[in-house]
């Protein structure tokens, strides 16, 4: 064993470039898996943590079941306190306001979570007992006094610094009633509850908050501190049930972190995409490792033959190769862990940007660490296992033979029928309908089968490629180009492995482009409808419904339609509840400004809008339709002020707000069932020929200051929303780049081996008069041929992969994305493949050119 290890180490050290390239491939593969695992876990942990920190030490939270923003009466606290098992009940009122005097448009940011305006979230609390539920870390000034009616506020330091607010300063809050002045008495750190709303958070005495916001006697939340024995496990479950029984169905008693559940759901498809593409990157790495070990075995055929001659058994030979594989796997996986942690840092920063939310990096998750190391090792061992077996079959006679051409594996010569069969099975994966829980695995399986199928088919196409590309490369690289192109026929197995690696990585590049374009097309269509009209008008406080009529009277305005968003509870058949967003519109004015994007292209939109206007009808998103298995004609039960009520599903529409977890309803129903009559925003359509700038200026003059309005151009908002979509795909681009790098390593490996095998031949060519530069061109031509093959196959592979992924996303997430074929992606894929092949060939080409003629001629 000791000797085996020593020989293995020596063998690896004797081929430093090859060893480094192989380790690099393993490092990248392990790093990708670990980085994605860390990033996903960190994101989920941070998001859940935000909600959890907002309630800090509380064991349970009591909320209104209707989520109609009216909260509930203060007396409910007494009921809660009176429940056995409750030690404390900490009340709070939760409002969102704007900081007056600030640019409201500047306070609006869009993120992947669909967040729109960042307002200041203000909790009205009882300072004397609130610290039993939440922790505050004061950094300046003092925390709140015990006077419940003091008009004072404590802000998060980062927020205060950003808005140049100091302790002792008075600030104006824009509320329903108008401007209210409060004094800043202290600043807290952005930890614990200070993380709420990304630090745009403040606390003030409950009484003052109730007065300022016109919510006297109201609460929004009670944080329950359980008594010992009731704080966890069965005790806590029992306490939850007891509270629910006491309070009735008008209230929800929940665990604090579960409030983040809906937010976390929104990231599902994103994380699924990251995991899917990380598997692809692993496939590329596997081909690289297989190719490397195959070449190593070929290179050492005579050496292995000699070892067999002096008595080494087949099993010992296999063991030798596998020992090298284990060493590379362990080293690669170890380094990959370090690289993965570094990569995760970068991905986390990107995720923070996308979510507009700080993401705290978790400790390297032990499970994720084991998984990534395990996968790295398993892939290395698996990919090197076949070459190891081949090494074991080398006969002692090989030691005595003059080096000839490597005999190709059986699959190179006869594997193409298998290839066709595997491709057909993979294509069948498109049409097989499986449950969403296994769709992910079906997609991954289909992609893997396609890669293996292509591996069997590519060898029989090599000659045709040479015939087609030889004239082209001769034109580019002259006679040497022709020599280089033909060289790929000499090692079809080697050529195939390299083409596969390029194919998969280019496929990733292309499919990510296609995916992004599909999203953009569908999101664009939805945004055009959602942010309809020309202007978008909103305020820091809820607007009155009749403002719409006054806006419509402004010269140059053709039509105005209101919009309001509330959270509603959906009651499921099993008795559990989910929270969805309810967007209310006035159908009559809505159709004059913009339109819904119906999933059924033949839908009679006028008829459907009339239905919506009649009431008791909702339009649901494709996501809701899929999740709750609803179609037009079904009913969906919502919790309203008047109790539970069934609404008919009128139509299915595109909806990307709240990641699709949304319903569209009428204003009539909003008033009738949810008791809301104010407006979140107005969408305005400008008359043909009227100047948008003038209309904007006129509205601002008439109502801007009085109503504290912000007027924005819809074009600007659309552009911002689209840029979020673009940024979201940048993370996938990172994975694609990694896959391309791994493929490039494969090209370097292959060409290096090709040069090594042809050392004597290169010496001959130099001897008969080929210059060093001509040798370089010959190698570049060979690489270019492989690059073109990899690019073309890659684009085709990418077409399949993107269709698979879009189909998978549609099934698992309920989207109805339309597949798109981006022409730019086709060209980009080809260009990248060719460029990568040329750049990767430079090192082996220059090595070939530097060969000394005499040494090369004498090389054995």
């Amino acid at each position, binding site marked *: 064993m000791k000797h085996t290890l020593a020989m293995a180490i020596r063998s690896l050290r004797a081929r430093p470039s090859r060893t480094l390239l192989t380790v690099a491939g393993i490092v990248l593969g392990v790093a990708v898996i670990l980085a994605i695992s860390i990033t996903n876990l960190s994101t989920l942990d941070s998001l859940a943590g935000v909600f959890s920190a907002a309630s800090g030490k509380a064991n349970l939270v009591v909320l209104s079941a209707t989520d109609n923003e009216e909260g509930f009466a203060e007396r409910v606290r007494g009921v809660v306190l009176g429940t056995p098992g409750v030690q404390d009940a900490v009340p709070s009122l939760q409002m969102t306001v704007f900081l007056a005097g600030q640019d409201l448009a500047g306070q609006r940011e869009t993120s992947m979570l669909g967040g729109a305006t960042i307002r200041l979230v203000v909790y009205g609390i009882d300072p004397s007992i609130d610290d039993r539920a939440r922790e505050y870390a004061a950094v300046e000034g003092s925390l709140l006094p015990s006077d419940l009616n003091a008009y004072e506020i404590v802000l998060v330091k980062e927020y205060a610094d950003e808005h140049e607010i100091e302790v002792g300063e008075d600030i104006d809050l824009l509320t329903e009633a108008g401007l209210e002045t409060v004094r800043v008495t202290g600043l807290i750190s952005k930890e614990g509850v200070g993380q709420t709303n990304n630090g745009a958070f403040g606390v003030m005495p409950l009484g003052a908050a109730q007065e300022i916001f016109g919510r006297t006697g109201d609460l929004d939340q009670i944080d329950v501190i359980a008594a010992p024995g009731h704080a966890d496990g069965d005790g806590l479950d029992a306490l939850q049930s007891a509270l629910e029984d006491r309070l009735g169905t008008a209230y929800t008693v929940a665990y604090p972190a579960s409030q983040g559940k809906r937010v976390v759901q929104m990231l599902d498809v994103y994380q699924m995409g990251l995991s899917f593409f990380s598997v692809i990157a692993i496939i590329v790495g596997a081909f690289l490792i297989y190719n490397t070990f195959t070449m190593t075995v070929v290179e050492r055929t005579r050496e292995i033959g000699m070892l067999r001659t002096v008595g080494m058994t087949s099993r010992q030979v296999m063991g030798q190769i596998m020992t090298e594989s284990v060493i590379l796997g362990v080293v690669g996986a170890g380094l990959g862990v370090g690289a993965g942690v570094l990569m995760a840092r970068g991905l986390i920063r990107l995720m923070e940007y996308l979510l507009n939310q700080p993401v705290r990096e978790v400790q390297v998750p032990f499970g994720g660490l084991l998984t990534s190391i395990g996968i790295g090792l398993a892939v290395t061992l698996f990919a090197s296992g076949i070459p190891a077996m081949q090494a074991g079959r080398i006969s002692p006679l090989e030691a005595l033979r*003059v080096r000839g*051409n490597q005999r190709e594996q059986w699959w190179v010569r006869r594997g193409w029928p298998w290839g066709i069969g595997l491709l057909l099975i993979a294509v069948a994966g498109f049409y097989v309908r499986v449950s969403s829980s296994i769709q992910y695995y079906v997609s991954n399986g289909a992609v893997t089968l396609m890669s293996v199928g292509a591996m069997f088919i590519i060898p029989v196409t090599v000659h045709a490629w040479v015939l087609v590309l030889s004239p082209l490369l001769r034109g580019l690289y*002259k*006679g*040497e180009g*022709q*020599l280089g192109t*033909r*060289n790929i*026929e*000499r090692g079809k197995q080697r050529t195939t492995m390299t083409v596969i690696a390029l194919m998969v990585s280019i496929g990733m590049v292309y499919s990510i482009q296609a995916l992004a374009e599909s999203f953009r097309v569908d999101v664009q269509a939805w945004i055009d409808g959602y942010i309809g009209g020309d202007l978008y008008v909103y305020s820091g406080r809820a607007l009155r419904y009749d403002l719409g009529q006054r806006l419509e009277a402004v010269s140059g305005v053709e039509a105005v339609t209101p919009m309001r968003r509330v959270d509603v509870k959906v009651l499921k058949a099993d008795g559990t509840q989910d929270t969805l967003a309810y967007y209310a519109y006035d159908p009559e004015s809505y159709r004059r400004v913009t339109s819904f994007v119906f999933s059924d292209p033949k839908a009679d939109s006028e008829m459907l809008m009339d239905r919506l206007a009649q009431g008791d009808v909702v339009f649901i998103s494709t996501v809701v339709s899929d999740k709750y298995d609803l179609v037009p004609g079904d009913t969906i039960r919502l919790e309203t002020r008047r109790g539970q009520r069934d609404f008919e599903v009128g139509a299915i529409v595109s909806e990307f707000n709240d990641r699709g977890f949304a319903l569209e309803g009428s204003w009539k129903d909003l008033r009738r069932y949810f008791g809301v009559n104010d407006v979140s925003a107005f969408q305005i359509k400008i008359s043909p020929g009227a100047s948008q700038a003038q209309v904007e200026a006129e509205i601002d003059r008439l109502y801007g200051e009085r109503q504290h309005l912000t007027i924005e151009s819809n074009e600007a908002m659309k552009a911002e929303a689209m840029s979020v979509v673009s940024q979201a795909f940048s993370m996938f681009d990172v994975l694609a780049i990694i896959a391309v790098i791994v493929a490039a390593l494969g090209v370097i490996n292959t060409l290096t081996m090709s040069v090594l095998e042809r050392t*004597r*031949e290169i*010496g*001959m*060519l*130099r*001897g*008969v*008069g*080929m*210059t*060093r530069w*001509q040798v370089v061109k010959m190698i570049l031509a060979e690489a270019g041929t492989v690059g073109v093959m990899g690019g073309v196959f890659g684009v085709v592979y990418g077409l399949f992969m993107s269709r698979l992924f879009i189909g998978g996303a549609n099934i698992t997430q309920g989207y109805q994305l339309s597949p798109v074929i981006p022409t730019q992606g086709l060209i980009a894929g080809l260009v990248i493949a060719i460029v990568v092949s040329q750049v990767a060939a430079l090192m082996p080409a220059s090595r070939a050119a530097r060969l000394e*003629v*005499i040494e090369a*001629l004498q090389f054995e």
Partner: protein
Amino acid sequence: MTDILDARGLRKTYQMGEHRVRALDGVDFCVRKGEFVAIMGPSGSGKSTLLHLLGGLDKPSEGEVTLAGQRLSILDDKQATLVRRRNIGFIFQFFNLLPTLSTEENVALPLIIDGQNPRKHEERITYLLELVGLKDRRRHKPDQLSGGEQQRVAIARALITSPAMVLADEPTGNLDSKTGTLVMDLLRRSCDELGQTIVIVTHDSRAAAYADRVVFLRDGRISTEMLCEGVADMAQRVRAVLETMERLAN
């Protein structure tokens, strides 16, 4: 006859680990145009080193090689390469044909490398294929040819540019005796019929017998030389005997 090749005071020293090895230790060597010279000597005598210096594949530590009036030592790598391409034909022990090229393409390889269109040299290629007896195998790949046939292709390749000199390193080293005789006969004919200047390095005395002059090296120096008269006639006689034997066998 004029000297096509003139080498004076050649010395070559190599560093091998901690030792300095003097492969050539003062060699003066010249070859007349149209002459066939064989260089012989025991292992380590410096014969391959001498061949490499004569062909511009290496530079001497001391001394000078002049080929067709061109001093090789003052050439940079690219210039030396061009000299090899146009003025020297190389024949190697292991044939070294390109497996992806056909017979005629391998013959035309120096032209391809020189950027010339082989089709414009169709006549010359056909002539050489006829000379080496492979005209009917012109489209075959090397793996379809025997060892002797491959070496004959290599000879045709070496002659395609009508070089000033052909250098052959152990041309029969990888062939059986009968095939080796055929190859040497070809080289002799190219010398007699085409006026080609040929220098071979060999340890095979039968191969050396085809040369007009045999130079013996020992310990990096020329030990002795032997002039052979009537070699052309001898070769003709051997050829006639072989052809007769061939006819009788068929």
